[in-house]
């Protein structure tokens, strides 16, 4: 008699179909194992927004009563496995449904396994993952994060490979045979077996990982709210120490975009013509205007959409870089003003070491091309 649960943390919309396929795959496989399961999304993540972290769950039980007992809780915690479908989520999860940053391993039970889709080695991922008070395991399924959109799905076998790896790290949740039985396609069955064979979990000790305390915010309950549910508007502008002149708009104190980003812009201030287009076209008001009229992307507000890169008229002045290349959110303009030479070195390093990342639909046939390219 037992119940087990799997949590899939993914990028909203971009990986919605992927997460659904994984959770459904678990439930179908459980049925083949003679057990009973259910898959569902986190209610408060809906409607999903592009890139904003969201969650889906699969719960498997021996009997209907056990399943119902488990479902009476709001959100499954003590998960046997947390699947992280995009490795930049290892920095933490700030969903649009709650406030503050949740470590990726927070809802994992002791000795559970965090399963990440990534090309990175385990220690590089552990650098980003917050420390946990109990030991757990980390396993990776080799691959770049699989991103597509709401209508056109990139069928690159990431979903079935995650299921294969799941059968290896948590055979008590679903068996390999059941997963293979549930998948008709022989190519996909081969992908399941390969992922099963290749996944190697490593133990993560309590003193390993990012020791930062995840940020959180105090919010009023309904008894302490103002009359008529008035929410105070933001102040027009915040004082930012050390900056004379320029303009820094107010920043929402209770919602940051650190965990929404999969990429971030890096700016070559030497070639910048101060044309203002990146600043004006940014949907997130993320650019601070510096005293010398440059535009500095504020990482507190940047959601990594890449519009600034697309509208910038200067070749390679703004470049979007995979978020995994960064460990802080410091101001690039400040770095550049202090030491232009080392900034230029830092910049070319970041640009040359850029890990691949696909960001959604461009044209018909693109996903097939990407899959062909990735498999060579």
């Amino acid at each position: 008699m037992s119940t087990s649960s799997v949590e899939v943390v993914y990028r909203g919309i971009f990986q919605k179909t992927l997460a659904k396929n994984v959770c459904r795959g678990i439930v179908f496989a459980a049925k083949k194992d003679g057990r009973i399961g259910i898959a569902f999304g986190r209610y408060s993540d809906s409607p999903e927004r592009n890139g904003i972290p969201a969650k889906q769950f699969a719960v498997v039980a021996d009997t209907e009563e056990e399943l119902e007992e488990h479902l009476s809780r709001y959100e499954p915690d003590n998960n046997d496995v947390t699947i992280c479908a995009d490795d930049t989520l290892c920095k933490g999860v700030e969903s649009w449904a709650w406030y503050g940053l949740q470590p990726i391993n927070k809802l994992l039970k002791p000795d559970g396994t965090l399963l990440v889709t990534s090309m990175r080695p385990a220690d590089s991922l552990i650098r980003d993952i917050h420390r946990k008070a109990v030991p757990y395991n980390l396993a990776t399924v080799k691959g770049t994060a699989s991103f597509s959109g709401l209508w056109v799905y990139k069928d690159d076998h990431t979903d079935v490979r995650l299921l294969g790896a799941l059968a290896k790290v948590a055979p008590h949740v679903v068996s390999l045979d059941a997963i293979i039985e549930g998948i008709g396609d022989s190519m996909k069955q081969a992908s399941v077996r390969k992922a099963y064979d290749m996944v190697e979990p490593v133990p993560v000790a309590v003193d390993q990982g990012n020791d930062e305390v995840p940020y959180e915010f105090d919010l009023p309950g309904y008894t302490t709210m103002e009359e008529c549910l008035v929410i105070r508007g933001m102040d027009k502008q915040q004082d930012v120490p050390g900056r004379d002149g320029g303009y820094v708009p107010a920043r929402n104190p209770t919602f940051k975009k650190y965990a929404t980003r999969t990429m971030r812009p890096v700016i070559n201030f030497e070639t910048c013509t101060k044309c203002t287009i990146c600043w004006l076209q940014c949907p997130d008001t993320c650019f601070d205007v510096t005293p010398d009229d440059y535009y500095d992307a504020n990482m507190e507000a940047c959601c990594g959409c890449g519009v600034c890169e697309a509208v910038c008229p200067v070749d390679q002045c703004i470049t979007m870089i995979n978020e995994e290349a960064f460990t802080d959110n410091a101001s690039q303009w400040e770095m550049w003003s202090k030491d232009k030479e080392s900034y230029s070195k830092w910049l070319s390093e970041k640009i040359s070491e850029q890990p691949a990342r696909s960001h959604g639909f461009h044209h018909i046939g693109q996903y097939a091309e990407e899959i062909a390219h990735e498999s060579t």
Partner: protein
Amino acid sequence: MQQINIHALSDYLETQVLEPWKGIKKVAHDEYFTSGHRTCQGCESALVMRLMIKAAGPRTIVLGATGCMYVANTTYYSTPWVVPWMHTQLGSSGSAATGTAAALTALMRKGKMEKEPINVIAFCGDGGGADMGLSAISAALQHTQYNLLIFLYDNESYANTDIQVSGLSPYGANSTFSPPGKVHRIMHKRWKKNTAAMLAAGHPDCKYVATVSAGNAVDTINKVRRALTIGGPTFIHSLDPCPKGWDYDPKYSHDLGELAVETGIWPLYEVEEGKLKMYGKSKHIAKRRVERKPVSEYLLRQGRFAHFTKEDLDYFQGKIDEMWEKWLLPGVIPFTGE
């Protein structure tokens, strides 16, 4: 007892005089809709909100009908708005704007508030505005004694509830309500409503109606400033590329906005005091100084049209050609002469 001359005092119609900003470098830095909202990556509608209120300035009240720009921007105890903002029901942006403008007039008439021109802007999505709220907007545009602006941000679906068809969804687009199948490829066969021109033609007393695209940010700002300066009830319709519902890489929001204009799908025009003026690239298209780009350049970059065949593209192109070549007023009024 104090005598109140209703006729003399009720028509307080002075507006803020907002001169156009000539060029991108003249755009003010001040932000009244700032960071920390929960929209999608590359959300053009969030940019439109930002430009709209940047243009209007601090002495403005904004009312928002249900939709993405309500839900994503004002989640529990958190907001990017700097100016006063209030939520109103899906179909009631017109009524809320009229009510707010009337209340301000009454408060000023009764001396409970200092006399001052305050901008009233009510925004709505395509579902709230062009489907449910059309009658209320129509009523608001008849109330010429009030200064108000109805701003319709159109992402061509009910995007907040995960992409259902609205009256402004384009022909053939994939959506939760119109998934293409093997037997029936095109599940949404209605043609998009011609909302701005319909409202301009149907409300001759309305002094200002415009269409905008945030791909052209400075023009968008200046149309809002013009509408608020002219006063009376006014209407602006913005086409906002939506990375979630249209299914494209979020970085191309700006490009797709521009392509919609360049292909002739989205004509840019303003109707001021009954006078029609095309502007931006649409002006050149109307005067046949530039060729329209083929609509396939715009459609095939979006996952919602990924099921289109040549036949569908030809049909779409034919409808757009008709709009520019056969219509009484090309791109605006669809009748043909005898």
